């Protein structure tokens, strides 16, 4: 499906600059994310990947130069899993505070099953491991119909099968016209082409 370039960008960052503790992490960094693109932000630890993600999604509102235009509400997966220990995975997903739509039970079952959590839908989450919590958080990707996904190292503590399942989902989301901006230390095996944004030189390739 040809990517319609004339659409407005789903996310536009104009000349972003951030100084952290006297060190300049990046400056004059501009990027425009259109539907059908997958962006990977690369950089060593401490290069400011997470700070950039927080600026792009709107959590950081002060302390940086430049502007971010966000016409659509992104789906943001951060380092923390946002899974309440007292609620079951199903309740966590159906009553999620990110304001997403109402998911039916079988949608939730299907999403959790694809991440290897079949049978754990209704147990209290405090009985699940940290890795399983991350997978419950990742299940939001399978349920959400948001166009723009901002993922901050989604694959940490996820096993091989989960990573492959998610990578194929990312590819189909991008082919379907959605956009993904993510940071990850692992190389991505995705069928669509990957635009990379390397923070060390602040260069867009």
């Amino acid at each position, binding site marked *: *499906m040809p990517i*319609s370039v004339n*659409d407005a960008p*789903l996310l536009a960052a104009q000349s972003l600059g951030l100084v952290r503790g006297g060190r300049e992490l990046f400056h004059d960094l501009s990027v425009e994310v259109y*539907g059908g693109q997958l962006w990977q932000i690369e950089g060593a630890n401490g290069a400011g990947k997470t700070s950039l993600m927080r600026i792009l*999604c*709107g*959590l*950081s*509102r*002060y*302390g940086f130069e430049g502007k971010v235009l966000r016409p*659509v*509400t*992104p789906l*943001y997966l*951060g*380092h*923390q*899993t*946002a*899974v*309440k*220990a*007292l*609620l079951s995975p199903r*309740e966590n997903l159906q*009553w*999620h*505070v*990110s*304001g*997403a*739509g*109402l998911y039916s039970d*079988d*949608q939730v079952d*299907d999403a959790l099953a694809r991440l290897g959590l079949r049978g754990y839908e209704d147990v209290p989450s405090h009985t699940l491991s940290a890795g399983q919590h991350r997978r419950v958080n990742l299940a939001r990707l*399978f349920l959400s*119909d*948001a*166009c*723009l996904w901002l993922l901050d190292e989604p694959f940490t503590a996820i096993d091989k099968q989960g990573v492959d399942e998610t990578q194929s989902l990312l590819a*189909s*989301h991008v082919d*379907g*016209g*959605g*956009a993904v901006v993510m940071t990850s230390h692992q190389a991505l095996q995705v069928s669509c082409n990957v635009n990379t944004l390397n923070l060390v030189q602040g260069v867009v390739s």
Partner: protein
Amino acid sequence: MQRQHPQSCSRGCLLSVPHTGQFCARVLRRQLLLAVRRPIEIGNPLLFFAIVIVLFPLGLGPSPERLVSFAPGVLWITALLSNLLTSDAVFRSDFDDGSLEQLILAPQPLFFSALAYILAHWLTTGLLLAAVSPVFALMLNLPVSALGALFVSLLLGTAVLSLLGGIGAALTVGLKRGGILISLLILPLYMPVLIFGTAAVQAAMTGAPSGPYLAILGAMLSLAIALAPLAIATGLKVSIDA
């Protein structure tokens, strides 16, 4: 069953975004369920209220006449302190596991989400406090005629206290040791509520009409409902950004 993927996103996204009222009801239900699933956290403020009430006769002496002259102030100050103790935890657990970030990024306005959080906090603390207070009022020898005024004044007052405590909670949620700080920030704002709350009970004790004082408490409540969520929303965005 391969879920049907949205073919093209350009025609607008998040098609099934629940409107604000639906979302706030869902947040309220979630918060109440979280509170009910750990009932001891509902019990704590009530136990604190009971224990501190018992301290006063030990300190002031058991004679009923002395106690009755202090009863309104004692009841109200204890309710105020127990409300203050619980207001620190309103956003703390959501901040720790990352739900607060998701709430701030939700398309629905944060003003009403914060209001839903505070309503849930009030239902699990203020309302129960008001319901339980007549028992302790009788222990302090408060005349039965003043129990009604006490209940209504606590009902309105604890709602205002929850809203103001929410502001303190939002500003200190990012700090590791925010507990003590919250009392320094918010107690000066609690004082007008304390003044008119005790005045209502004292008036009822002496047989005077407590209506005007309850009206002022109601006015404070409406002002707090209108303005406090603004400060709470801004405070949360600032604390998340720190």
